[in-house]
């Protein structure tokens, strides 16, 4: 499988601080690739370099087979993290403007607009002025603007943030449809559950350096099966002062425990303290792995 994006030894500094440090990365074509990492870790800088908005101080970036990332720009759809729309424009004019900047013809843009507006459950609104739209509607229009020219690569920075579950579901389906059409999708997110469910591969950046890169399975197996999900009659109180408990993530009804020792021995000790209703030895969640890496 060829790569839609390749980064080799990319470094970017701002005022002496390395925002991205010697980063190498390959995004296979046709995949959904999740970028995760704490705030300020270098996600947005990396995405902006891929978009040729920022230039790397060192290293090489190849996008859709071209080292001149500007040349590939027309085939890349981009939804930045902080986004806005022209309030006084109609949706139709906005989509035509953004689509033409990507090199699409007006007839193709109009056809795509009709399709995606229906897909986003916003039919018949093309002649509405942007300022009359709700926040959720605006976010969906921003997504449509990013895909209006049918890009081969779609880069989405926090696409689901701020959306209610219904709209998030609509947007998720649209992202999956873009992948089905053959597009490569790269998106950054703070929602680990979304990354787990949607991404073929996950990449984590921390303090400018790559700390995770692979499929969810490979990442989880790297961190072993040291996690237990359990439910007892006493809740988290049953776990107090137990010697083989390294960390507890208390969800109220359920506790996720990272163990230092043997799970069977731990179960025996726990059963002596409380009634155990549920006990599942599992691999750590992406959330847990994220916290292990990023916790100060």
């Amino acid at each position: 499988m060829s790569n839609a994006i390749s980064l080799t030894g990319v470094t970017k500094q701002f005022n002496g601080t390395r925002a991205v440090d010697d980063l190498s990365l390959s995004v296979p074509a046709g995949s959904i690739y999740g970028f995760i990492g704490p705030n300020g870790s270098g996600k947005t800088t990396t995405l902006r370099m891929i978009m040729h908005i920022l230039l790397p101080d060192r290293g090489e970036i190849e996008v859709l087979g071209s080292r001149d990332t500007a040349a590939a720009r027309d085939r890349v759809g981009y939804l930045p993290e902080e986004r806005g729309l022209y309030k006084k424009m109609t949706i139709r004019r906005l989509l035509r403007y953004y689509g033409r900047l990507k090199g699409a013809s007006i007839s193709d843009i109009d056809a795509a607009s009709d399709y995606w507006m229906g897909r986003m459950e916003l039919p018949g609104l093309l002649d509405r002025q942007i300022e009359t739209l709700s926040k959720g509607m605006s976010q969906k229009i921003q997504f449509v603007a990013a895909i209006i020219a049918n890009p081969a690569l779609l880069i989405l920075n926090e696409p689901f943030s701020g959306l209610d579950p219904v709209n998030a579901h609509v947007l998720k389906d649209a992202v999956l449809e873009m992948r089905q059409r053959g597009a490569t999708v790269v998106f950054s997110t703070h929602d680990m559950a979304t990354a787990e469910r949607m991404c073929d591969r996950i990449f984590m950046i921390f303090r400018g350096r790559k700390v995770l890169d692979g499929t969810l399975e490979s990442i989880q197996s790297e961190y072993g099966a040291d996690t237990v999900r359990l439910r007892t009659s006493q809740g988290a109180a049953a776990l107090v002062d137990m010697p083989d408990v390294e960390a507890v993530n208390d969800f109220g009804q359920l506790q996720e425990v990272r163990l230092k020792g043997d799970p069977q021995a731990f179960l025996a000790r726990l059963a002596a303290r409380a009634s155990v209703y549920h006990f599942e030895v599992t691999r750590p969640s992406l959330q847990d792995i994220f916290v292990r890496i990023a916790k100060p």
Partner: protein
Amino acid sequence: MRKALIVAQSEFVTLVKSKAFLVGLILMPVVMGTSIMLVRATKDATDMKDRTFAIVDYTGVVAEPFKAVANLYNSGTPSAMDTVLPRKGARFIPVEIKPSEGNPEELRLDLSNRVRKQELFAFVEVPAEILDPASTTSIRYYSDHPSYNALPQWLRATINAVVLNERFRRASIDRALVVRLTKQAPIDELGLFERGADGEIKAAEEVNAARAYGIPVAVLALMYITIMTSAPQLLNSVIEEKMSRISEVLIGSVTPFELMMGKLLGGAATSIVLCGIYIAGGLIVVQYWGGYASAVTPSILGWFLLYLTLALFIFGSLFVAIGAACNDLKDSQNMMTPVMLLVMIPVFTAGTVLRAPDGTLATVLSLVPTAAPFLMLLRICLQPGPPMWQIVVSVVIMTCTALAVVWAAGKIFRTGLLMQGKSATLGEMVKWVTAK
């Protein structure tokens, strides 16, 4: 370039559809037209309030004939005095006060108090020595309305006319004869003779002030208004995109330089359309009022278009760079001031150029790239116009300046556009420009 044109088209449509454009298009000519009509309608009837003043005549012979002339003036009867013009506004009513035998200062104080109590508007003293032609004495006018000059001007003309009559009478000279003998011939200001295409000699035309000065000043004003309204609109457009986070979406599709060029082209196109409408309207008006439309030659229009385009690129780039470097409109206002001054200073010096369009100062100022769109254009409009080499030099200097400013603004635009949270300092902008 294709993408820059798409941005330009969008900018053009947005600007032309904006309220500011429509207001500028409709409201400004309406306001100007109404003002002109109001001035014309009210110029002879602005002030009809009577002004009563005291005259203290130390000659003993001026007050009586002066009052007779004032009566004629107030009744609207033409005066025999050739220096006294017909009445246009308020009536001037004299009250004669006989000079006191005591201290004249007491009388002056008394009359001053009457002015303060508004019994009188002013008082005037005619000194005894005034009848002596060798005397250098003055008529003294006292008032607490220093800005009202209609009465002192009228008094100067009228009292002097009476005094001259008295001087001629005492010298036993017939004043009417002197007036006839000393009558000056007027001078007609004419252009030059020329030979027409048909071989016939065409007589010189009379110089018309409206044609000679009115058209150049109007062209200068149009240039100034266009730049002052168009360039800041570019700044607003950039700040709006930056504040509403549209910029990053756009530079995901176009390079910052293409985006900036698109904005400049769109802004320039909008200004040219606006100017075209103003010029067309203006030509109809000047043709209607005086038949001067022929004074606006195609060559003047061509130079106007060239200088306007270059000026919009220079000033537009500066405003675009400021917009990209600032975080909000308030910060941009401070940074705009020096650029605004660059636009205003040439207009302040336009009087010098009007008086001596071929003088050294006018020549030097009109070659300065930020002043050339105003002052060289003004010189082109004033006959006989500057030498062609000066026009060419100014266009070359302006073109080089425009390229340099667009290049520097592009570098500021690229960096500033993504900077959020604080406005850049001048030092930071210089650093962005000089960075590789």
